């Protein structure tokens, strides 16, 4: 029997969609995906989610959302969707050996960290190159590190890494950060944090482990080597839409194109969160979009039955 609502992804968008769909009696099924809980699982303090005046840990927030979704009867399945077919109704999705049928699908697969794509980066991943400070910072006690990026994630990673590293150098391609003012102020005030402005990393150096990064100043053209034991990349994210590529409309950057609040190019398939949002990309906006997707799915089902 087909599920009424199948939700793909379990970040703030997917779980908020689940809360609303479950409370509407639609018995949603969430296929949580292999990056369970989404990007917030890799963060520490979340200070801008409304309702938590003292901040909340990312993983803890996701645990609460999960409990809230389950409380109203959401079924959460530990699997990763690797194929979908939206060409016929009910829609079909596959996760490993299991096949699902669904009247409506809500896509909330989020986005994943982007890499620089420079020589040495892939070869040295896990040997000093990382995109997850909370995972790997531990291995760099009293070492020197570079963080590449200029947004909130880069500031957060740099600040987190100061717990372990003796020195953290933020390398940014512009002459100012695009991070929020409070994060910039904290990073610049930290005595373990240095900034190299107007510069890009051209190569990660090291045979078996990172020994440094080669940097080019984009204004002067000057090339230099910064000796570091690790490089953490925080330059943004790409939407997780590879599975849906031939099924629904995506924009040039791979984000799902929405018509109205949450409708995709396929009637009955909805989307919300970072997978369809290249602009705001916040936990709270993702949650809001997940809510819209659930309400739109509910409305769509009611219209079909009427």
């Amino acid at each position, binding site marked *: 029997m087909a599920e009424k609502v199948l939700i793909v992804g379990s970040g703030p968008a997917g779980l908020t969609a689940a809360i609303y769909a479950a409370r509407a009696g639609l018995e949603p099924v969430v296929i949580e995906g292999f*990056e*369970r809980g989404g990007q917030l699982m*890799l963060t520490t303090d979340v200070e801008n989610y409304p309702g938590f005046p003292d901040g909340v840990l990312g*993983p803890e927030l996701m645990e609460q959302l999960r409990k809230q979704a389950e409380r109203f009867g959401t079924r959460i399945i530990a699997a990763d969707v690797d194929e979908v077919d939206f060409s016929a109704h009910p829609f079909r999705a596959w996760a*490993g050996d299991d*096949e699902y049928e669904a009247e409506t699908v809500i896509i909330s697969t989020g986005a994943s960290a982007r890499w620089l794509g420079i020589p040495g980066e892939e070869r040295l991943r896990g040997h000093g190159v990382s995109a*997850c400070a*909370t995972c*790997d910072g*531990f291995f760099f006690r009293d070492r020197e590190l570079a963080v590449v990026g200029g947004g909130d994630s880069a500031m957060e990673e740099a600040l987190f890494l100061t717990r372990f590293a003796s020195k953290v150098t933020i390398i940014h391609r512009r002459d100012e950060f695009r991070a929020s003012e409070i994060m910039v102020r904290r990073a610049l005030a930290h005595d373990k944090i240095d900034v190299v402005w107007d510069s890009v990393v051209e190569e990660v150096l090291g045979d078996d482990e990172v020994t440094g990064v080669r940097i080019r100043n984009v204004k002067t053209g000057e090339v230099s080597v910064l000796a570091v034991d690790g490089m953490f990349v925080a330059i943004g994210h790409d939407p997780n839409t590879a599975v849906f590529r031939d099924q629904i409309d995506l924009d040039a950057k791979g984000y799902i194109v929405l018509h109205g609040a949450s409708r995709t190019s396929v009637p009955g398939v909805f989307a919300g969160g970072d997978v369809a949002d290249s602009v705001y990309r916040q936990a709270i906006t993702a949650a809001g979009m997940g809510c819209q997707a659930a309400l739109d799915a509910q409305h769509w089902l009611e219209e079909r039955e009427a």
Partner: protein
Amino acid sequence: MRTRDRVALMGNNTVVATDATLPDMISGTTPVLVDFWAEWCAPCRLMEGPLDEIAGANPGKLIVAKLNVDENQQAAMAHEVMSIPTMIVFADGVEKKRLIGARSKHQLEADLAGFV
């Protein structure tokens, strides 16, 4: 939901490795996959289910051991683990394969071809 082919047994099919037990544990002829992990590592927690299932589906063929890097820093350093999860397959005391980063069960099975 229809299940096409579910062979894995859910449960506790993995063993625990420590600084003290690791050298002996990986010296045998049966391949041992050692999962270097920590409580605070979210991607590591993602691997719990897949690793347990793979261990349950391959008795006698592949031993899956979990090594907490917080409590066993010596082993993590000896094997140059700088990112977790790192999963290393050993046989006869020698490293045969190293997988860095979390992945789905399907991907993990594909990466472990020859051992499972």
